[in-house]
């Protein structure tokens, strides 16, 4: 079949605003293998969430994919009609949102919301769907599932709600699970439980997971591969050991250095100076150069190419000299 279950090629997303079109994601490419967990990290405004939403056709009304392709099992999702994509959503591709209280419908019971995808996508009748739903709740570690089925979202705690969301997302055995900050709203002890649950489920069902997060700790825990985004672009991607042990892009290095680590004695945190640029800000050359300690004239003038060694991609001119000979260079726009 396909080596990559999901292939994203040169994806660009823009939003319609009063002042015209505003590009939020300017051409990102990545692949996801079967059973692999890919984490997309970056700070707020880097485009990680809209990228995730575009994968299942959930961009807000004023947003659109203006270039590139999202290939799921060879099919280009950007070319599908909304009816066709609805058949995939919740079935082959499903999503876990950050805030389960806003993602669950407050006026329907847990049971109703769990049965819904089973009835729609798998054509189960109510009694059968009920059984499957109870089973799902048990699998995500909810006690007395029969009783929970009759409860409403507000009757459950935050961790429990997130488990319900995961159960709904898994209802139709999706091939890809997209998780947008699934544990950010939870306490650490509950977060640990949910991350373990996700890892466990992934292994059991061979689901591929695309996780969006800003927490480097969570990334280290769950990822096989890591994509670092900055201001609408991928600045570095590679497997998890490479990114954490040998980060090459100055932004990735800065990001890792600014996380307070409980295992280390640090006197002063190395902050990255400045702030993330706004979308409308025109920055020549590398978009990170105003905050980069190593910026040269070349960085200020020309947008860096992507330099790639052993599937470790870095979008930075610093890699150019080193890359000569051994790295392949991907010229970008």
């Amino acid at each position: 079949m396909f080596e990559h279950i999901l292939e994203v090629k040169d994806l660009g997303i823009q939003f319609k605003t009063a002042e015209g079109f505003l590009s939020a994601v300017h051409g990102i490419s990545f692949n996801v293998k079967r059973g692999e967990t890919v984490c997309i990290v970056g700070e707020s405004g880097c485009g990680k969430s809209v990228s995730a939403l575009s994968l299942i056709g959930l961009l807000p009304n004023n947003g659109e994919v203006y270039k590139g392709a999202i290939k799921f099992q060879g099919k280009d999702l950007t070319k599908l009609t909304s009816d066709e994509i609805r058949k995939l959503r919740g079935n082959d591709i499903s999503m876990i949102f950050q805030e389960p209280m806003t993602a669950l419908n407050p006026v329907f019971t847990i049971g109703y919301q769990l049965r819904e995808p089973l009835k729609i996508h798998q054509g189960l009748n109510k009694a059968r769907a009920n059984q499957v739903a109870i089973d799902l709740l048990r699998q995500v570690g909810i006690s007395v599932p029969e009783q929970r089925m009759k409860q409403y979202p507000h009757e459950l705690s935050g961790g429990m709600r997130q488990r319900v969301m995961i159960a709904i997302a898994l209802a139709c055995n999706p091939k890809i699970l997209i998780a947008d900050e699934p544990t950010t709203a939870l306490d650490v002890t509950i977060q640990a439980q949910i991350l373990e649950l996700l890892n466990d489920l992934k292994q059991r069902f061979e689901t591929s997971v695309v996780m969006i997060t800003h927490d480097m700790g969570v990334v280290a825990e769950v990822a096989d591969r890591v994509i670092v985004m900055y201001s609408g672009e991928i600045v570095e991607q590679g497997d998890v050991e490479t990114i954490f042990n040998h980060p090459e892009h100055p932004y990735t290095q800065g990001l890792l250095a600014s996380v307070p680590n409980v295992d280390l004695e640090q006197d002063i945190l190395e902050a990255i100076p400045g702030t993330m640029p706004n979308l409308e800000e025109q920055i020549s050359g590398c978009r990170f150069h105003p905050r980069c300690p190593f910026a040269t004239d070349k960085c200020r003038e020309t947008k860096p190419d992507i330099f790639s060694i052993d599937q470790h991609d870095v979008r930075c001119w610093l890699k150019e000299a080193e890359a000569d000979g051994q790295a392949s260079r991907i010229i970008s726009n």
Partner: protein
Amino acid sequence: MGKQVALYQINDVKKHYPIKSGLLKRTKKAVRAVNGITLDIQENETLGVVGESGCGKSTLGRIILGLEPLTEGELIFKGENITHYRSSQLKPLKRQMQMIFQDPYASLDPRQKIGPAIEEGLIIHTSLNAQERKQKVIELMQEVGLQPSHYSRYPHEFSGGQRQRIGIARALALNPSFIVCDEAVSALDVSVQAQVINLLKRLQQDYRLTYLFISHDLGVVKHISDRVLVMYLGNMVELASVKDLYSNPRHPYTNALLSAIPRPTVAKERVKIKLQGEIPSPANPPSGCPFHTRCPLAQSVCSDQKPEWRNIGGDHFAACHFA
């Protein structure tokens, strides 16, 4: 540390919110948000308070600032018993105690320019004239890393990190000696969070500030604190110097909390202590030790007897039968 005079003493403070129900709205039960906290906050230290949501850490911060009346206990600020002070009596003290909030956007008036927002405290508490006040505001803005040209901008024109700097400038305006930071950096991105933490540390040295730093993030708390208090369900669990607490946690809850933090390093598998279940409701707390329902070491004594808060050696305190 023992001989120093405490800046702020908190003696057995409790805050219970009544739950009224039934036809006559009688008080049936109470939510025990804060259930007996005794603390000495030393001058010029940073006392971190950590715990999961619902553990009462924010309520404690509000009680300490006199924003929330307490049910029981005593508050002594600089030797003065302020427990039953009326608001007019509290007013002169309030300029010495300030707060930095989690979400600076929610705590700033969207229609007020930030210069006047920082100035507000000066109008209420000082007799400076308009020109002197403006001068002072601009000094404050520079101190926290804002440009003087930002004076007449509105809050929405700033990024999250800059807004938090505005919040810090407001808190600093009256030269306070004591600042409660309630999740002050939790809403910020890591790169900016590190900037704000470094700023807070520098200001503490320059102005001899005392911080009560409330946060759920154990990494941040470790970085900024001198001593750390761990709370669970309104109770004190463990209190020790930062070094002791992180290298030698004695209470099983502290241990579990520390082991649950995802580490930003790829290393060999760590052995994690997994807690079962969730935090019980503070309206209906468990008998005995509040943590016994989730504790991996729990014995029968834990459900019968509430463990005593005791010194387990060298200013390290814990409430556990087995610590």
